[in-house]
Structure formats: C-alpha cells, structure tokens
C-alpha cells in the first residue's frame, strides 16, 4: 500500500525505458537465448526439436557445438530413418534440416536418399492432384526438396510434377483478400498461409526449367504484400509474423519489392519479434523469433536498420546502429544532424551535420560544451543513416537530469477561509537525503464543509520530473494528490474533508481519525530510484460522518429481500378433503337409486345387424371414456388422441346403423299407433 504510487512510478519508468530502448536484440537477449537453446539441445529428442535448436543457435552465433553433443544429436535425428517411407512432409523436412545443420553422417545414405525421394515424390504427387487444405505441409515438402536438391535425382527435373504443385498452390490465392486465405480466416492464419505459399512457390519456381513463364503468376499473388507486411508488424503471434516475413523475403529474391515496400515498413515488421524477445521462452517461440529477425535483418527488399537509444557516459553520448538481430551493418554512413532541446532544431548544439565513425556498430559523440550535463530535460538527437546511397532519418530522445538535484523551498501550510497556519517554511534537502523526515508534527480537526486544505509546495532543481505527488497515508490507507508545476514551483492542495473517504477503512464507514505521514514522491525515468520523502506527521481528527461510496454501498449490508412469490393457497386438511370426496359421491348414489326406481327398458334394443353392433357401439363409447381416464392417469395427449380417434371412428361406424335402426323402428311404431287411433 505504502509503495503503491512508487510502484506505479516504476512501471511508468520501465515502460518509458522500453519505449525508447534499443530496437534490436540486446547482449542480454543473446545470452539468454543462447543459454536456453543449449539447454534445449541437451534434452532434444525429435528431429524437429534438434532442427529448431541447432539452426537458431547457429543464427545467433552461439559458437561451435561439442563433437560429442553433435554425434548424440545425429543419433537422435537418424534414429528412425529406416522408416522414411512412412514419414510425413514435416518429418522429411525436419530430418533433412537437422542432418544438414549438424552435418551428420547418414548410415546407408544411398538407400536413405532413394527412399526419401520416393516418399517425397508421393507426397508431391498428392499435393499436385488433391485440393490443398494445409499449406504448412506444402511448405515442409518444398523445403525438404530444396534442402536435398543436390542429392535427389528425379524430382528436381520433373517439371510436370513441379508445375502441377505450383498451380495447385496458386489456386488457393483469392482476389477477395489478396492472399492465400478467405475472408473468414483470422489475420494470423492469413499471414501464416500466405507466408508458406510465398516460400513454396518461390522454391518451386526456382526449380522449374521454364521459370520466367511463372513470373506473372507470382506478381499477381503478391499484389497485397505491402498491406500484409504491415499486418505482420502488428501481429500478436510471432509465428505468423515469422512465417510471412520469411516467405516474403524468399519471394523478394525474384520480385522487386523495394519500390512498393519502404525501408521503414521492413524495419517495422521486426516489431513483432522485438516484442516477443521479452516473452516467456519456448523452443517454438525462440525459433520463430530468430528466423523472423534473421529474415528481416537479411531482407532482400531493404536492409533494415535498428538505431538504439542514447546512452551517456559523462559527456559522451553513444548509440548503436545495427540490424534487428543486433549485428553491425557494413557499408553504412552515420551522420549526427542535430542535437537540440525541446523541438526546435535551430537550438542545435552542433552547427552542422557531423559524420561519426563507428566501432563495431557503436557511434559516439562528445558534448564539448557540457550543456546537456548541466541541464535537466529532453534532448533530441537527429541521426541520418545512409546505406547504398539511400539515407533514412532517425530521431532518438535523451532524457537528462542535472548533476545537482535539489528540493528547495518546501512549505507546508494548513489553510482554511480566513486562517492560515504555516508548519514548514522554506525547508530544503538534496535529493540524496530523502530518507530524513522533517520531524514536523501537525494536528488539526476536520469538520464537514469547512474546506480545510493542506498545501504543500516545493521547488525541484536539476530535474524536470515527470511525476510529483504528495501523499497522506499510513501503512493501510492513503490519499495522493498530484503536485502541479505553477510558475516554476510545484504545489499540491489536499482538501482534508474530501479525502476522508480514501482514508476510511476500505469499503466501510469508519471514521478516519488518526496519525498519517505527509510524504513527497518524485519520479522520473532519468532517476534510478524514485524519491519518497516524509515531510511531516499529521494528526487528523475527523468530526464528520463518512458515508460509503458507490462501491462501499455495494458491499454494505443490504436490505433484506422478502420473497415475492405468491402466498400458498389455503388448503383443506386431508380429513376434510376425504369427507368432500365422499359427499361428492352422494349424487352418484341418488342417481343409482333413481335408476332402480325408474327401471330399465331394453325393448327397443334393435335386432339383426344393428343388434350385433349395439354392444360394440356401447363398448366403443365406454372405451373412449376409459381412454380419457387413462389419459389422466398415465398416457400423454398424443397417445390419448390416437386411441380416441380410433375408438371414435369405431363408434361412428357402429353407432350410425344402430341409432338409425332404432329411429326407423320408432317411426314405424308411431305410424302404427297413429293408424290405430284413427
């Protein structure tokens, strides 16, 4: 808690440092990466791991490997070469790459090469006829072909096959995206697939005898290369950026990109790798990082330049001009065009541009006037780097502090309307003495609305600090105010009743009365260590109610929620419900007794067919009622409807003749009665 502001200040300093720091790999990066790769080599077990570790180490200039290590690695690489006819494209590529990197002796080399070629040929035949879904396989196959080109007999001269594979790969290009992906693909997949395609097509074109005919195709598929290289600079996945940059670099050996892609764009494409240099190490990441940076450093489009930040040693100011991999660039001419404070070049400390001679990529300029050392502020260094007749300007900012750094005229004033008490008046200390407390004790009461202020003012000499704060707090709680520069002096005003919320216990409504430190914090990226200086101790007696803020109210005890469900309906007891069930059956008894009293009459029962159908009709009606009862107990509506419709059909078919027969009989009977009465 007490160091929270200090921590923020440190983060800003680090961020600023990395912003203006070197854009190439530093010596520390080299050291860490080389050490990591050597460790990985000891544990590498597959050809892919050996390939990645060895090639990355060689590109970093990691030195010769011990012969015993080389032979054990070769053993691991050659362990499964007897099964080369089952290898995938990736296996072929990694095996070939690892063998070549380690210069392994291959047992039964002739047989191995023959089997290798057969297997590669079958993979290429598949790639020539089937739609290509995974461009990484194409890449691996073409890389394996390139690496073993001198050893293979038939494939490098098989123009038909190579042309077919070339056309099949080109067929994946779409005008919609200008790349080897469709619109729904992510940016990273697009970069990866396009990088694979560029490199594979370039390799194939170099082997096909009638290669000039393929140039228009290559020009067409690289139309959007300039947009894609900008995407690579912003890619969050280093693998995607690495694959694209390598593919583009390969394609640049055939096509002239120098007019379409600027040097700055090539340099910016190294950004993704520079970001990754500080990431957690993994073999894949390191391989992609090193391959990507190598491709950028040895770009066939423009030679990218990395200009480091300015470092100071007394009155000498130096910077490095290197490739993104951190290696010096030969044939470069470096001129220091201007050194000036602020933004006005006319204030340059040097009258005219000076050419500086470099020493292994490091260029040094001496400030004879010593002006930079005496002042505090920012100085801009305008640097021109000329390579092959092309000049590119760079600007680097150097932040400086004076050799004499002081805090002077420190005043602590407690003020209220019509009242002003001064506690510290014109005290001062050198910045080195930040550990001392001024031993001032201040006591005051704070009432609501009286606007009592604690005003701290001071001057800073020898530094133009980026961050100046005044802190009131203890180990658990604090309130911080920014000290703003007003007319040369810094001033912070803290309204004591307004900071009560900050000093109260977090999220609660505790009165913040207590003893606190009044501290001054000064931070700047030019300072190695931020300053924390306790100016005084203050006893605050708060006579106000501290109400919780929005967040505090959220965590406070809330009003109890009463459920809003419907109140359960009044229910009869089991006894009453049972009695009711019996009472409801009483009318059934009345009905039954009434039936007995009225009597039954089956005289009108029809005869003949209708007589036979009458029981069926009655049974079907009873069946329908039974299905309805069954529906209540067990079955669902669909089953019930099914049975009801069947029984309904039966009752209609049987009921119609039965009721018709009864009706005819009644009509005939009535007619006879009427005749009889006549």
């Amino acid at each position, binding site marked *: 808690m007490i160091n929270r502001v200090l921590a923020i200040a440190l983060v800003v300093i680090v961020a600023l440092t990395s912003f203006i720091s070197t854009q190439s790999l530093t010596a520390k990066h080299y050291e860490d990466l080389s050490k990591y790769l050597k460790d990985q080599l000891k544990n590498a077990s597959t050809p892919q791991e050996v390939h990645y570790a060895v090639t990355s180490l060689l590109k970093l200039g990691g030195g010769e490997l011990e012969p015993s290590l080389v032979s054990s690695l070769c053993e691991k690489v050659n362990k499964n070469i007897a099964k080369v006819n089952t290898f995938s494209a990736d296996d072929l590529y990694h095996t070939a790459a690892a063998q070549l990197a380690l210069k392994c002796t291959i047992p039964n080399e002739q047989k191995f090469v023959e089997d290798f070629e057969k297997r590669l040929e079958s993979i290429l035949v598949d790639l020539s006829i089937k739609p290509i879904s995974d461009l990484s396989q194409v890449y691996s196959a073409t890389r394996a072909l390139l690496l073993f080109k001198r050893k293979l007999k038939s494939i490098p001269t098989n123009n038909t096959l190579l042309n077919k594979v070339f056309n099949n790969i080109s067929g994946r290009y779409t005008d919609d995206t200008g790349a080897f992906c469709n619109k729904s693909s992510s940016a990273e997949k697009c970069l990866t697939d396009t990088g694979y395609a560029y490199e594979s097509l370039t390799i194939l074109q170099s082997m096909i005898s009638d290669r000039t005919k393929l140039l228009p195709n290559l020009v067409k598929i690289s139309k959007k290369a300039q947009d894609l290289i900008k995407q690579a600079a912003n890619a969050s996945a280093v693998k995607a950026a690495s694959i694209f940059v390598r593919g583009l670099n390969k394609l640049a050996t055939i096509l002239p990109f120098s007019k379409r892609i600027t040097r700055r764009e090539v340099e910016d494409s190294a950004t993704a790798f520079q970001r990754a240099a500080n990431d957690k190490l993994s073999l894949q990441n390191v391989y992609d990082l090193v391959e990507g940076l190598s491709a950028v450093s040895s770009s066939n489009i423009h030679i990218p330049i990395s200009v480091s930040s300015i470092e100071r040693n007394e009155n000498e100011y130096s910077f490095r001009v290197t490739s993104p991999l951190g290696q010096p660039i030969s044939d470069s001419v470096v001129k220091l065009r201007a050194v000036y404070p602020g933004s006005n070049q006319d204030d340059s400390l040097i009258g005219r541009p000076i050419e500086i001679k470099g020493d292994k990529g490091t260029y040094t300029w001496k400030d004879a006037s010593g002006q930079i050392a005496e002042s505090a502020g920012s100085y801009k260094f305008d640097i021109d780097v000329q390579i092959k007749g092309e000049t590119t300007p760079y600007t680097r900012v150097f932040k400086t502090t004076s050799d004499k750094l002081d805090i002077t005229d420190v005043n602590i004033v407690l003020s209220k309307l019509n009242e002003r008490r001064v506690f510290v008046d014109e005290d001062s200390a050198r910045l080195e003495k930040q550990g001392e407390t001024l031993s001032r004790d201040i006591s005051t009461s704070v009432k609501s609305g009286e606007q009592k202020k604690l005003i701290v003012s001071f001057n800073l000499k020898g530094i133009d600090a980026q961050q100046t704060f005044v802190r009131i707090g203890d180990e658990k709680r604090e309130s911080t105010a920014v000290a703003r520069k007003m007319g040369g002096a810094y001033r912070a005003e803290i309204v004591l009743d307004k900071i009560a919320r900050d000093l109260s216990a977090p999220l609660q409504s505790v009165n913040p009365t207590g003893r606190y430190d009044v501290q001054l914090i000064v931070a700047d990226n030019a300072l190695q260590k931020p300053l924390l200086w306790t100016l005084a101790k203050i006893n605050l007696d708060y006579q106000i109610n501290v109400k919780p803020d929005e967040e505090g109210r959220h965590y406070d005890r809330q009003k109890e929620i009463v459920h809003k469900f419907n109140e359960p309906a009044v229910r009869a007891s089991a006894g009453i419900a049972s009695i009711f069930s019996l009472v409801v059956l009483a009318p059934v008894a009345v009905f039954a007794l009434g039936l007995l009293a009225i*009597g039954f009459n089956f005289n009108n029962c029809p005869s003949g067919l209708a007589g036979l159908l009458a029981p069926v009709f009655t049974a079907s009606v009873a069946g329908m009622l039974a299905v309805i009862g069954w529906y209540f107990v067990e079955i669902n509506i669909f089953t019930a409807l099914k049975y009801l419709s069947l029984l309904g059909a039966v009752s209609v078919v049987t009921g119609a003749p039965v009721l018709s027969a009864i009706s005819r009989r009644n009509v005939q009977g009535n007619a006879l009665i009427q005749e009889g009465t006549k």
Partner: protein
Amino acid sequence: MANENIFEIIAKLVENYKKDTPQKVKLIDLFIVFTGLTAAIQFVYRVLVGTFPLNAFLAAFFTCLSLLVFTVALRKQVNPATSGEFRVVPERAFGDYIFCCVLTFFVAMSYIG
C-alpha cells in the same frame, strides 16, 4: 289453506310427472339432477374451504354445468312434447350428445392437470 294447496299441487305435479313423462325423459331428468347436485356440492366446498386446486375445481365444476346444459338440450330434443320444433330425430340428438360429452370430458381431463 294455501299451504294445503301447495302440497296438493306438488303431489299432483309428481303424479302427472310419473304418469305422463316417458321413461326416457325421466332418465334424462335423473341425470340432470345428478349433475346439478354434483355441481352444487362442489360449489359449496369451494365457498367453505377455498379454491385449491383451482384448475381442478374449474374443470370439475364447469364439466358438471356443461353436462347439465347438454342434457337439458337432449331432453328438449327427445321429449315428444317439445321435440316438434327440432328437425332432428331423437337418436341423432343422442349421437350429438355423446360427441359433446366425450369432448367435454377430454378437455376437462386436459385442464385438470
């Protein structure tokens, strides 16, 4: 005097009912009384105890009332004294009545839940 007349009237009504009313119609009247009594008992229960479970009460009560109405309509169509205004034969009316009852029972069972 007036009370004796009422009892005499009622007795004569019953006697004429027994004599003049066809057996078929008596059966129907009996069924009407049955459904009416059942509906009345359910209503009294609802007033005394409450409507829980409401859907079951509604289904049962209105089924009884529906049956009562259908049966009254059947009586009108079957009774020779009143069937003259209808163009359907009593057997056809009975068939319609069965259909309406089955449908009512099915709906009631669905609503009971």
